[in-house]
């Protein structure tokens, strides 16, 4: 396994899905200011499989919130696939997220009263997709997460690992530009975690789905092909991992 510096200059401009320009996020600016994110410049290209790492409090969640359009930077601009989301209103942002960004949360966050299938389908209902389209996509997604037989189960009847796979299916159902996952394995045992990574990895390789996930689990970091390390809100290191085991 070798490592090298990522070279954004070689990537075609259209390949960049996430582009942050010198963004900063300060909490409590009037009392004791906390620089959760400080002057971060990042380019993330389509098809990347990126881990965001760093100790607790280093700003991972804050950065993911900013990229996901859930929060706004106090300084700097963020472009998603060419759209400057920092210039959108709150209402426009909700709409933007629905069509462009997939979210996976640490605590799964499925709707307890809906079945696994309905949970994943939900986002397509919000998008106003037809029944036919929804059914076809659901079938495909549940095959990919290897849970075709569990579509009718409620979240409460599924293991944590299974719930998180459903969450990945939900995030993907909307055909987003990329998927943001904040510590997706933090609530999983190591076997489920590795199983989830297998599925995400496979989707990334076979369908070129872009994933950005935060973690501080060493075994998860090892699966990433790019590792961005944050320390005190700043990018401390950014390395591409040349994965020799992968059939490139």
């Amino acid at each position, binding site marked *: 396994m070798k490592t090298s510096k990522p070279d954004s200059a070689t990537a075609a401009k259209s390949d960049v899905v996430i582009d942050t320009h010198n963004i900063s996020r300060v909490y409590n600016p009037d009392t004791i200011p906390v620089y959760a994110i400080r002057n971060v410049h990042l380019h993330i290209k389509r098809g990347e499989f990126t881990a965001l790492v760093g100790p607790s409090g280093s700003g991972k969640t804050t950065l993911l919130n900013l990229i996901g359009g859930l929060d706004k930077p106090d300084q700097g601009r963020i472009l998603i696939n060419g759209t400057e989301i920092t210039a959108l209103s709150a209402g426009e942002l*909700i709409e933007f997220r629905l*069509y462009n960004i997939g*979210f996976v949360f640490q605590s799964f*966050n499925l709707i307890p*009263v809906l079945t696994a299938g309905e949970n994943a389908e939900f986002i397509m209902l919000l998008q106003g997709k037809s029944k036919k389209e929804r059914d076809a996509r659901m079938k495909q997604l549940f095959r990919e997460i290897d849970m075709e037989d569990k579509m009718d189960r409620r979240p409460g009847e599924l293991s944590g690992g299974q719930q998180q796979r459903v969450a990945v299916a939900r995030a993907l159902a*909307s055909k987003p530009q990329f998927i943001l996952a904040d510590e997706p394995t933090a609530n999983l045992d190591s076997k489920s975690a590795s199983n989830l990574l297998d599925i995400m990895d496979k989707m990334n390789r076979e369908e070129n789905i872009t994933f950005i996930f935060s973690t501080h689990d060493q075994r998860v970091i090892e699966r990433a092909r790019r590792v961005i390390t944050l320390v005190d809100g700043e990018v401390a290191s950014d390395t591409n991992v040349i994965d020799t085991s992968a059939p490139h």
Partner: protein
Amino acid sequence: MWLIGLAWKNLWRNKTRTAITMSAVFFAVLLSVFAGSLKSGIFGNMIKNVVSFYTGYIQIHKKGYWNEQVLDNGMICDSALEHRLLQIPNVTGLAPRLETFGLIATNKSTKGCLVAGVDPEKENEVTSLKKKLIRGQYLNFNDTEALLSEGLAERIKARTGDTIYIIGQGYHGATAAGRYRVKGIVKFGSPELNNQTMFLSLPAASELFSAEGIATSLVVSLRNPDLLDETVRALEQKLGSETEVMSWEAIMPDVKQHIETDSNNMKYVQGILYMLVSFGIFGTFLMMMVERKNELAMLIAIGMKKSKLCLLMVIESVFTVLGGCIMGILVSIPLVWYFNQKPLRLGGEIAKVYEKFGFEAIFPTSLSPDNFVFQGITVLAIGLLLSLYPVYKVINTDPATSLKR
């Protein structure tokens, strides 16, 4: 719409919470319907009692009679007129009266009194005069005998079988003088009536006062007393401008005022009930919003518009509140019915006071559908108003800070 489906499913997720909200609404509707129907039942009964003293629900006079209550202001009253008025659906009966003041005398004493010529049967239908008889016998149409109120009989020291004399002024200045045997004694709850009233049969009174075919007032009895104002209007339309139609409210404004005051006091009681229910419902909404904070933030994060989410909250509230409302009304129907058939009955001192005024201390509930509808809608409105709280919370949700990851 799928949103309705989701709202429906959400109701079942925390059954205890939904049950608490629903039962708060349920008991609110049940209690307020019951209280409301008891209230209107009590007042309805009270009015019925008061008007059956003497006035009736509605009286018809010649225009100006009420201001100057003299025989010369009497009106012509015949069966054609009665027939015409009985065509109004809510009018069930008419009792003509010929009333004037005169002097009543025995060998021992002379007093002023109200002489009322009545049609004994029709009068009984309107004011249950027969029930008030405590001694002797009731009048027949062709009798030339008299009924005295108990107080008046005492004042002139007359007993049944005694002879009394009446002197007064008849129609258009004619002299009126007559001699009658006391056939019976009636007792009124109202001291005013009890101390100065005597009854003759209408033909006897007409003869005494030379007022053939004349009545000073026509007392109207009603099928549904709730339609008082409508019936007054219908009567006015039939009768034209030569007559005045007065409801008991116009005849006894003080009684009306008294009832309105009491009825307003009942409104405070009801207001407190509504407030308690509001707190109950609000508490469950508060609980719900804490419990679902994370889920709502997630929905907004993945791209659900806040307006849609608000709609979801409102639909859920409508389901819960409407459910409780419908159950409340369904259960209150037999309850109200039962207490209409088997009215609450007061005993002890209160009952004695009531009996003194000549009515039973019973309180039947009113079966008026208005009450069910009104209470149901009020509680529903409270529920919907309170559902603005979840809506407010949704609008103020910031997914970045509310999401527990």
